[in-house]
């Protein structure tokens, strides 16, 4: 959030209205209904599996998108322009993410398949109360820091005379009284941004180890945590681009969002496409060289054996091969409709990747992929929740939207 103008040059417009909220709410309600029906039905494991996957996916999207503005803040980046404000809007999903995390406590063995397994001495680390407590505290810290960072950013965006009550007052406080206070807020904002980056790496590593890698409690990869948070940033960038592209398409010409913004963030997205593949390959190579059965079974199960093999290639194509080839082109990064399609493809690919990671231990001896209509509806339900959360933030803080007129940074 590097535009630190107490009074924006022109009033932003385009906060999502009823036309967005009604379908989003319908999707969320449908997803919730499908989950409860599934959890109370004959195969609750399937519903909880979809819940866990979507919790991980959509929480990572929110966490990664907010990381974008934290990173641009501590690097003093000026190229990001209005994208900084938009990334802050994803913090609206933080409270929902925390509530959804708490709901995992009711999943029992459907979410923690190691609950009744012989853990060979890992019981002191892998027990449900401790897993929930440490991840819950971690998420609280991460989200707390995220909101503190956002608070400073919002204060700098508020017009001097801007009033506000309720959530607006609680989250943003007031505009700085003078230039000296604005400078102090900027310095504070940089500190919170640094803390957010640090907490992001730690908490997402922990979540990656505890909620994904521990599904198979006898397998481990020391790089898995880093892989998980790199993926979260990749996801966050994708979601941010989608939001910016939607605004650009809706406004017809994107007055505040210029093609250079799409080009620059498209390059960053491309870089994280490569980094995701790099982290995947680095783990694969070490396991391949070591050739230890305790490690190789994890990869063989997911990439060689049916029914997971086709899914593995689908994921690799959607998350790396297709984006890599497409994003080499400069122009495509600047066309909102094209980049929106590509980012959606990557997000769906990473949703399937989570199924590939957590699916096998939850579906021992599966003859076919545990993927169907109910999973798709739950995915759309979480999408609805995310749309509602982001819309609520943008309606409460229209300052986060790109200004109606282009701003030269």
């Amino acid at each position, binding site marked *: 959030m590097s535009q630190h103008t107490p009074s924006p040059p022109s009033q932003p417009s385009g906060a999502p209205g009823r036309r967005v909220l009604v379908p989003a709410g319908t999707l969320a309600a449908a997803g919730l209904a499908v989950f409860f029906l599934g959890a109370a039905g004959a195969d609750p494991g399937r519903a909880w599996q979809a819940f866990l996957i979507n919790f991980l996916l959509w929480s990572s999207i929110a966490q990664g998108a907010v990381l974008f503005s934290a990173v641009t803040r501590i690097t003093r980046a000026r190229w990001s322009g209005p994208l900084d404000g938009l990334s802050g809007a994803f913090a609206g999903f933080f409270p929902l993410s925390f509530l959804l995390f708490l709901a995992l406590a009711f999943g029992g063995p459907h979410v923690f398949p190691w609950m009744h397994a012989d853990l060979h001495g890992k019981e002191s680390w892998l027990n449900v109360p401790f897993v929930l407590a440490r991840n819950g505290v971690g998420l609280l810290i991460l989200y707390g820091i995220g909101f503190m960072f956002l608070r400073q950013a919002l204060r700098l965006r508020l017009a001097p005379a801007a009033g506000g009550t309720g959530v607006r007052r609680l989250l943003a406080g007031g505009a700085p009284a003078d230039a000296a206070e604005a400078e102090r807020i900027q310095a504070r904002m940089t500190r919170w941004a640094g803390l957010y980056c640090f907490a992001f790496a730690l908490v997402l590593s922990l979540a990656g180890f505890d909620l994904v890698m521990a599904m198979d409690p006898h397998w481990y990869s020391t790089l898995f945590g880093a892989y998980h948070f790199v993926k979260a940033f990749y996801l966050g960038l994708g979601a941010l681009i989608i939001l910016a592209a939607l605004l650009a398409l809706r406004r017809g010409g994107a007055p505040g969002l210029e093609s250079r913004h799409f080009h620059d963030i498209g390059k960053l997205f491309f870089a994280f496409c490569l980094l995701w593949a790099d982290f995947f*390959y680095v783990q*694969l*190579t070490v396991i*391949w*060289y070591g*050739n230890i059965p305790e490690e190789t079974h994890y990869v063989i199960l997911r990439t060689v054996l049916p029914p997971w093999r086709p899914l593995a290639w689908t994921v690799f194509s959607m998350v790396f091969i297709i984006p890599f080839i497409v994003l*080499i082109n400069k122009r495509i990064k600047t066309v909102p409709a094209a980049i929106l399609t590509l980012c959606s493809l990557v997000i769906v690919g990473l949703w399937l990747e989570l199924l590939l990671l957590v699916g096998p231990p939850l579906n021992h001896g599966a003859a076919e992929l545990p993927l169907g209509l109910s999973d798709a509806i739950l995915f759309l339900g979480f999408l609805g929740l995310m749309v509602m959360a982001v819309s609520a933030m943008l309606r409460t803080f229209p300052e986060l939207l790109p200004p109606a007129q282009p701003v030269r940074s």
Partner: protein
Amino acid sequence: MAAETHVMGVFRDEGQAVAAITGLATAGFRFRRAHSPIPSHRIQETLTLGKSRVGWFTLAGGILGFFTGFALAIFTSTQWHLVVSGKPIVSLIPFFIVGFEFTILFSVFGNVIGLLVCARLPDTKGLALYDPRCSGEHFGVLAACESGRRGELVNFFREKGGEARTFE
């Protein structure tokens, strides 16, 4: 066809050089080249150059390098048949590293070759139409015209605030 002559306008000011470049076409002269002692965005924008083709050389180099790396690794492995830890002789997973490194290497080669080709280097005749002051603090604008209009071109550059240097 009338013989062509070259005149270079030498300017101390970047704005004057930009104005000269802009005015050449309307005055009916042919712009040839611009020299700048600094990377000048204003001159770059005035020239309205097309998209550089260097990237295509880089891409071609990268693709060629990727397959060359794999080919080299496969070729050398099949020459010795040393089985390590029971792994296949031709193992694509580790060979990817060689493929990746060669991609980078050949991309750089492609880039440098592309730069040389697109900039038409080495240019053995280049110094014949050059003023050494352009490596110091002057901007040079080289233009061509028919021999009979040489005086007009010289006057054009002088009107724009520069010094005119004629090349035979």
